[in-house]
């Protein structure tokens, strides 16, 4: 791994942090909302459900509040923000030559193993984020900045969970001992 070249290609994390903080502030200042991700994906999922099985959507309270009857799950700010995230990530990758088909995995595992764990991790993330009413963006970052007690408790739980199990999954990410 050529760490020197890698480091010059990505922004300094403190610079990123300041820019992200300014953007987050601007978002609250202009719109009254912070940043989000999983909520937008949630609404996209529900929109597809509403196309395929509309009766089921109307009968399930949690989904019905977003898409029941005439409600449009996509007519919500967070959906547009998620579309923006996809575009912004793509343009940033394009400018730096990072848009290419590849799999990021630890040195000890194959791409296939990585895909399997990525999928399982994704399931847990998706479920956990809805249970917690937000993800790293919507709860930890945004709720953290406006000093919500629940968001800080959530943030501590995510880091506690991550550090708590990291040792058991070290083979996924670390070099051999």
């Amino acid at each position, binding site marked *: 791994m050529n*760490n020197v070249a890698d480091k010059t290609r990505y922004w300094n994390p403190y610079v990123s942090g300041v820019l992200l903080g300014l953007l*987050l502030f601007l978002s609250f200042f202009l719109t009254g909302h912070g940043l989000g991700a999983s909520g937008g994906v949630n609404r996209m999922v529900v929109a597809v459900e509403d196309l395929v099985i509309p009766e089921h959507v109307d009968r399930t309270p949690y989904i019905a509040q977003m898409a029941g009857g005439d409600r449009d799950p996509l007519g919500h700010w967070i959906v547009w923000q998620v579309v923006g995230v996809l575009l912004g990530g793509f343009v940033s990758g394009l400018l730096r030559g990072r848009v290419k088909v590849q799999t990021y995995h630890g040195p000890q595992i194959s791409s296939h193993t990585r895909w399997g764990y990525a999928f399982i991790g994704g399931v847990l993330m998706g479920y956990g984020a809805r249970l*917690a009413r937000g993800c790293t963006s919507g709860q930890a970052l945004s709720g953290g900045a406006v000093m919500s007690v629940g968001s800080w*408790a959530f943030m501590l739980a995510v880091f506690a969970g991550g550090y708590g199990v990291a040792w058991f999954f070290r083979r996924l990410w670390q070099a051999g001992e």
Partner: protein
Amino acid sequence: MAPFDLQALIGNSGSYFLYLAIGFGFGFILESSGFGDARRLAAQFYFRELRVIKVMFTAIVVAMTLIFWSTALGLLDYDEIWVNPTYLWPGIVGGLIMGLGFIMGGYCPGTSLVSMVTLKLDGMFFALGMVTGILAFGETVGYFNAFWHSGAMGRFTLPEFLHLETGWVVFLVVCMALVMFVGFEWIRGAIYGKAK
């Protein structure tokens, strides 16, 4: 006074464009910070790289300070901005599940979108899993609705919880972030050496 009534000011399509632009900036910053790469995100939990904590807490401190000052100067109405309501128990359990999901999957929802859109296959599998998990939640939450609403405290902020002036809370969070930055660097140095 901010925040603004966007509907009245720039209409429906105008507000959607604004949200799109904010999202664009968010995605751009995430990708530029290296957050489209699961190895760099996961490295936080092995103290090998500290990007996650540096970016996240710098952002929180900057945004929090600006919100505090603009409120103090009367430019922003803090009562009008969205503060995530506290539902303590589902928040904590959801957070723990996400910690596990993060170590196994290497992304969080936002970063997986950036990874996916730059054609990383692991990001795509993660995003597929995330959609599955979200779908599963919508179908199952009906069975444990009471738990999902447990520990409800409404709009409950750190200054209220700690019985401190907001300015002091901001000051303490800034101090905590600085201690974390130094502390995590120290741990990394102790494990991997100073060289990197």
